[in-house]
């Protein structure tokens, strides 16, 4: 009885099995032939380079992703140092794979926001209620008095793939622990406020202002703007004044007593430290002398 059932089951099942097997083998043969005929030779070095890359696909190198960069760097070895998140370590590894020797590159670059004005430090002529991006807010004149400072809608925050930027009280703030130096934020900022600075020290001295307004105008618009007074440039030639704005020469930059004095003597406190363990800037409006006495 059971045997008959099993036999019946077998009788109805075997054509299905044979068909499946036939189809399977048929496709296997077609795919096998195709894989032989349509073989694409790939240089194993591309795979090796791809493995040592950080695989973040951030686009800092100028290619769409790590895969494309690996391919490009094999053909054009001069592109070796382009991987910002990987830094010197990755460059060394790639050079090893390609049997090349590279000279040590300079310190890795990190973004610096040239503004230190939080919402309460800035002057606003009106309230912006349009599309909540810096690019559109920037297109509308005379909402924020300062034409150069941080707009604070976070275009850089959304450009950052590493969650290293945040808006703190209307000011873009970099978390240097998370930052890989890919430079996406500096491209995203419609006011070109973020520049890539070679961090030769852990904390770098930065002129946290971008205002080219005259001293009087800058002071009327912002509590912590650079007024171009030139006190810092009198201390040391690392600082210079151009277009009413103090600038730091990072080629020469070394932390010395003079730079410290320049920072403390700055009347608006616009020279600050930025970096992983940077001390907090002088509170807005605090007198320069008081700060220098305290330190």
């Amino acid at each position, binding site marked *: 009885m059971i045997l008959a059932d099993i036999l019946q089951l077998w009788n109805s099942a075997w054509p*299905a099995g044979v*068909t*499946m097997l036939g*189809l*399977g083998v048929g496709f296997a043969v077609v*795919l096998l032939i*195709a894989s032989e005929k*349509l073989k694409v030779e790939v240089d194993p070095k591309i795979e090796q380079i791809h493995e040592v890359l950080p695989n973040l696909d951030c686009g800092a190198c100028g290619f769409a992703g790590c895969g494309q960069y690996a391919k490009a760097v094999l053909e054009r070895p001069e592109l070796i140092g382009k991987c910002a998140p990987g830094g010197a370590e990755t460059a060394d590894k790639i050079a090893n794979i390609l049997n090349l020797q590279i000279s040590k590159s300079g310190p890795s670059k990190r973004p610096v926001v040239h503004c230190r004005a939080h919402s309460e430090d800035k002057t606003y002529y009106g309230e912006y209620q349009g599309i909540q*991006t810096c690019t559109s807010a920037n297109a509308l004149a005379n909402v924020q008095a300062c034409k150069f400072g941080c707009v604070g809608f976070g275009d850089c925050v959304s450009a950052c793939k590493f969650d290293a930027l945040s808006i703190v009280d209307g000011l873009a703030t970099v978390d240097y622990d998370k930052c890989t130096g890919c430079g996406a934020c500096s491209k995203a900022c419609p006011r070109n406020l973020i520049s890539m600075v070679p961090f030769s020290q852990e904390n770098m001295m930065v002129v946290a202002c971008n205002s080219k307004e005259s001293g009087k105008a800058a002071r009327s618009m912002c509590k912590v703007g650079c007024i171009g007074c030139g006190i810092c440039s009198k201390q040391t030639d690392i600082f210079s004044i151009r277009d009413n704005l103090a600038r730091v020469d990072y080629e020469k930059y070394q932390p010395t007593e003079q730079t410290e004095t320049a920072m403390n003597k700055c009347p608006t406190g616009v020279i600050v430290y930025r970096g992983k363990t940077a001390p907090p800037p002088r509170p807005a409006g605090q007198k320069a002398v008081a700060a220098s006495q305290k330190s």
Partner: protein
Amino acid sequence: MDTLNTLLMGFISIVLINNLVFTKFLGICPYLGVSGRIDMAFGMGMAVTFVVTLSGTLTWLIDHLILMTIPGLEVTRYVCFILVIAGAVQLVEMYLRKFFPSLYESFGIFLPLITTNCAILGLCLFINLWEVGNLLEAVVLSFGAGIGFTMAICIMAGIRENLNLADVPKSLRGAPITLITAGLLTLAFMGFAGMIK
């Protein structure tokens, strides 16, 4: 003339009225997953159109030449169709990689993902369910299904691109507003129901 009429009606029906995404709720995962940007959505739509036309034709042939001729074999339809789709996708992938490397790069991960796109298996089974009699009609229906999918995913991507700029309430941001949009879109397309047949 009569055949042409049938083909045209079938095409319009599968694109607008019986759209796989809007009325059958098939292929929802790529529909929601890859509809972030319009160019990617269009790429996905083109890849699906290509594969669905190929596999719809192949499965119709296999169905009519093998499975329907031997009694009792209909039950293996699902397995056979999945086999055909997977094989077709693999073949397409190899072919593209060899002859159109740039297209292959731009499709990227989408191509292997299509293997598990239920809209394609659904279409192959629907062609059988609707008892499509001749090969030409099957080809047109498969192609139309692909076009319908492309249209759906592109509309969705267009809406979502604009949604990025809208001031959405915080609790609805991300997945919820996407699902609400998908629902409204489906409702809109329900208006076509009953236009043909």
